[in-house]
């Protein structure tokens, strides 16, 4: 589903990523782990079109999507969430998800300003779809709440609901468990599995090892901008190089 070939990123004189190649298989949950500064978030920003890589290619399915802007990737079925949750704070929860349905609707400035009949029908459908996705994430009761007043954990769920509203083929989550308590993390794991059940490919960057080992089908380990290992959670846990990197023996 998602294939990276020789991704290299240089910031000034610093090589943040060097020759990373890897594949996230369709319908699987893939974890990207590594100590701080390993380049996980940089890799995510490249894949999702926020940064442009120095070298290498990104393929979505068979299509080379290297350096595509995020709005174009969204239309091709790729969506992401952010480590520090990027909600639309001044809007209500349901409106946030309605923004996620932007690509599923078409009304332009003209038809919105003049309230053409097609636009009104579309609004109703969008609102219903948005409620469906809130329900999917288990926060439908929060619909009319202003997004900025949500507790962090609920904000995370909202961000996932909003991303799922695009009906993506692949969703990338940047540290979804960051800032969550243990109960919320368990709920999150259930939600991630539920997303996989809908046939969506999941890639997550995560520090919470328990979560990663629990939900992931395969794992990519980065260290100091290089690929250290790749494999099933079990294989990774027993990999001496990974253990060394994490315990600082390397």
């Amino acid at each position, binding site marked *: 589903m998602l294939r990276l070939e020789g991704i290299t990123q240089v910031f000034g004189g610093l090589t943040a990523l060097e020759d990373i190649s890897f594949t996230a298989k369709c319908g699987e949950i893939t974890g990207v782990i590594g100590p701080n500064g390993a380049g996980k978030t940089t890799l995510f920003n490249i894949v*999702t079109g*926020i940064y442009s890589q120095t070298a290498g290619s990104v393929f979505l399915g068979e299509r080379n999507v290297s350096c595509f*802007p*995020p*709005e174009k990737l*969204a*239309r091709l079925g790729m*969506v*992401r969430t*952010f480590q520090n949750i*990027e*909600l*639309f*704070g*001044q*809007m209500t929860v349901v*409106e946030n998800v*309605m*923004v*996620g349905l*932007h*690509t599923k*609707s078409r*009304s*332009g*400035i003209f038809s*919105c*300003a*003049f*309230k053409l009949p097609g*636009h009104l029908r*579309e*609004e109703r459908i*969008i609102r219903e779809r948005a409620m469906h996705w809130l329900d999917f994430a288990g926060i439908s009761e929060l619909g009319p709440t202003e997004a900025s007043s949500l507790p962090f954990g609920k904000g995370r769920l909202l961000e996932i609901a*909003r*991303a799922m509203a*695009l009906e993506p083929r692949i969703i990338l989550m940047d540290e979804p468990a960051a800032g969550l308590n243990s109960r919320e993390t368990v709920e999150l794991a259930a939600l991630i599995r539920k997303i996989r059940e809908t046939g969506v490919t999941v890639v997550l960057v995560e520090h919470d090892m328990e979560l990663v080992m629990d939900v992931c089908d395969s794992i990519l380990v980065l260290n100091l901008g290089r690929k250290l290992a790749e494999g099933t959670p079990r294989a990774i846990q027993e990999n001496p190089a990974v253990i060394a990197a994490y315990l600082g023996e390397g």
Partner: protein
Amino acid sequence: MKREIVKFLLFAISVMVAPLIFKGGYLLNVLVFVGIHTMLAVGLNLLLGFAGQISLGQAAFFGLGAYLSGILTTTYSVNPWLAMALAALTVGILAFFIGFPILKLKGHYLAMATLGLGIITYIVFNEAVDLTGGPSGLSGIPNISLGTFVFDSDGKNYYLIWFFTLVTILLSLNLAHSRVGRALRAIHDSEVAARVMGINARLLKVQIFALSAFISTIAGSLYAHTMTFVSPASFGFNFSIELVTMVIIGGLGSIYGSFLGAAILTLLPEVLRAFQDFDIIVYGLILILITMFMPGGLIRGVPTGLTFLLSWLKRSRSANA
């Protein structure tokens, strides 16, 4: 939804009735300006309050509308309505193409670029003497007429201008509560998240910039035909700043707030005449106090202030009893 319609109707009726109460005179002339300024502020609010993009060059579009209408109707004897449409379309399209490079910039840089746009236009108004009449201005601009009915008094112009202002308000309200309005607010709150949601932020920002220029141009044309005289002094940098102030004082992202801001900033100098030489100081003081104590603008600050006052009164009364 229903409440929105009722609110708008009440507002529209108040606008219709206002001249009957003030019965012509000087205040009516001021209210004509409140209408023009509301239109400009609402147009700017779409850009500043919704999309979160600053423009310090709105006076340029206002001026272009006024001058294009003025020149077309005097030098080339074009019908005022046609002149207005031509001006708005030309400036709207121009703004669309200028918008692409300019709106790539963010924050202070965008402010500088739009400021430059305003200054260049101002210089052209002053220096292109053959076309614009230079600093002494352009006079003899005809009034707008509808068949044999000529809008040649404050009373008539009031209804003409407020008709356009109400249409602008209505369409902007519709836009605000729609897919496009949500996309704009999304860009404002987090541009990167908006793009990840598939919103073409760059294109949408440019479109809304062009729309706000289009609205300002129409306001400019109406101004020219009402005043029958235009000169560069009305379209300087100060006026662009004043428009930004109206939007912020009224409340960013609130259409009715823009009306409040426009009304206050237009009426205040008239009221403050009583302070004579100190008027500018009092004016500044009021603006500072509003921004300090009502960061959400008058539209949000006044209701909050009133509820606070009421509960305070209630408490002090029960304390006395």
